[in-house]
C-alpha cells in the first residue's frame, strides 16, 4: 500500500533519514519505535509529504507521491494523520472540526457530514461535546476527537505521530482504546510511539529506528523476546 524506497531526508547539513526501504501492506499495523532523534517522526511525516524527502521515492496505492505531477492534496485526503499536540482548530467547535474537510473537499454535504460526525462522536463516547470548543476538553478527549476528525475523511491509512506523548498518564488508555478499535477493524496504521505495551499488543510489525535507518524489524514477540542487534537490546533494556 505504501512503499518507501531509499528514503533520505536532511535538514541543512544534518542527515535525519539515511536510506529507508520499507513496504507497508494493507491492513497492517506498524509500530515505529526508537530513541529520540532517531528519525521516527520525520519518517512518518515523509509518508504524507509534510516533510519533503531529500531523495528516494514514496509510493502510495500505486502512485509515486513525491513528484511534481502528483496531486498531494488528493493523496493526503486518503491518509489520516494524528499529531502529538492534537492540533484541533481552536476557533471551531468539535463538530465543525470534524466536518470542515469533508465538506470543503466536496465529499459530503454539510448535513451528511454532521450526521457522520455524530456517528463518530457516538463511537468514542463524546456526542455531548459536539458543540463545545476544543479548549473546554481534556487532552484525552482532544486526541480522540483528532482521531475522529481524520477518520471523517474515510482514509485508507492512518498515521499516528506519538499520539499519547502529550497526555496525562491516566488519559493514555482512552486514546489507545480507540486506536485498538481501529486496528481490530483492519485499518492500516503506522504508529510512532513510546508505548511499548501497546505496540506489543496491537502491532503486526515493529520497526526499530536509530540513526536514520531501520536497525531491526520483527513481529512483536520476536522483537521483544529475541532482539538481534546490540542497539535494540540496549534500547529495550532502558525502556522496559
Amino acid at each position, binding site marked *: 500500500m505504501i512503499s518507501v524506497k531509499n528514503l533520505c531526508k536532511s535538514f541543512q547539513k544534518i542527515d535525519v533519514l539515511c536510506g529507508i526501504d520499507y513496504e507497508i501492506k494493507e491492513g497492517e499495523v506498524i509500530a515505529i519505535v526508537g530513541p529520540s532523534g532517531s528519525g521516527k517522526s520525520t519518517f512518518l511525516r515523509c509518508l504524507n509529504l509534510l516533510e519533503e524527502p531529500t531523495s528516494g521515492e514514496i509510493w502510495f496505492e500505486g502512485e509515486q507521491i513525491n513528484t511534481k505531477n502528483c496531486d498531494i492534496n488528493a493523496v493526503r485526503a486518503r491518509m489520516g494523520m494524528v*499529531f502529538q499536540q492534537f492540533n484541533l*482548530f481552536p476557533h471551531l467547535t468539535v463538530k465543525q472540526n470534524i466536518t*470542515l474537510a469533508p465538506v470543503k*473537499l466536496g465529499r459530503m454535504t454539510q448535513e451528511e457530514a454532521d450526521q457522520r460526525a455524530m456517528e463518530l462522536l457516538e463511537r468514542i463516547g463524546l456526542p455531548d461535546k459536539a458543540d463545545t*470548543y476544543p479548549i473546554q476538553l481534556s487532552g484525552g478527549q482532544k486526541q480522540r476527537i483528532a482521531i475522529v476528525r*481524520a477518520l471523517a475523511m474515510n482514509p485508507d491509512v492512518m498515521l499516528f505521530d506519538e499520539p499519547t506523548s502529550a497526555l496525562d498518564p491516566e488519559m493514555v488508555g482512552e486514546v489507545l482504546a480507540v486506536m485498538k478499535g481501529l486496528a481490530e477493524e483492519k485499518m492500516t496504521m503506522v504508529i510512532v510511539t513510546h508505548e511499548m505495551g501497546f505496540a506489543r499488543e496491537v502491532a503486526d510489525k515493529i520497526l526499530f529506528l536509530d540513526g536514520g535507518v531501520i536497525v531491526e524489524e520483527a513481529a512483536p514477540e520476536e522483537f521483544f523476546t529475541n532482539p538481534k542487534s546490540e542497539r535494540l537490546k540496549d534500547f529495550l533494556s532502558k525502556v522496559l
Partner: protein
Amino acid sequence: MFEDFFGKFSRAFLEDNCSGLRLMADGLGKTALITLGSLVLGVILGIILAVMKVLPGKSIFNKILAGIANTYIAIFRGTPVVVQLLLFYFGICARIDIDPVLAAIICLGMNSGAYVAEIIRGGILAVDHGQTEAGRSLGLSYSTTLVKIVLPQAIKNILPALGNELIALIKETSVVSFITVVDITKVAGNIIAKTYEPFVPYLFLALVYLVVVLIATWLVGILERRMRQSDQR
C-alpha cells in the same frame, strides 16, 4: 466666562438656523466615509500583501511576490501620507476627473494597507504551524487552510492592533483637506475664517474626534468579545 464661551459657540455653530452645526455634520459624514472606505481597502490590501510575504516555498514566483510586497510596504511606510495624497491627487490624477473623496479613500487605504499588512503577517506567523499541518494533512489546499484555519485565528489575535489602526485612520483623515475635501476639520477651519475665533470651534472639533474614537473603540471591543467566544472554558 461661561457666557462668553456660549456666545462664541453660538456664533460659530448656531447662527443661521444652526448652519455651522449642519456643515460640521456634513464634514463628519465625509470623515466617516473616508475612514470606513480606507479601512476596508486597507484590510483587503493588507491581507493580500501579508499573504504574498508568508507564502511557503522558495520558488522564483514566490520570491517575486514577496519582493513586490516588500517594495510596496517600504514606499508607503517610508513617505508621509500628506505627500502621497498630494502626489496622487494633483500629480497622478491631474488629468482624470476624480472625486477628491474617492481619491482620499484610495490613497489612505493604500497607505493603511502597508501597515495592516505587517500586522496581519505577524498574526499569521503567530498561529502555530501545527494548525497548517493539520489542515494540509486532511487534504485541504494551502489556500483553503489559510482562509478557513489560519486567517480566522490570526485576525482574532490581531484585533487589538487593527483597532489601533482604525483609530489612527479616523484621525489621519484630517489631512484630506489638502486635496480639497471638506471634511470636519476643514469645516471647523472655514467657520473660524468667518468668526475669527479659533478656540471654541477647534475645541469642539477635538471633542467630536474624541467621541468618534471612543465609539470606534467600543465597537472593536464588542467584536473582540464575540470572536473570543471559543476561548471560554
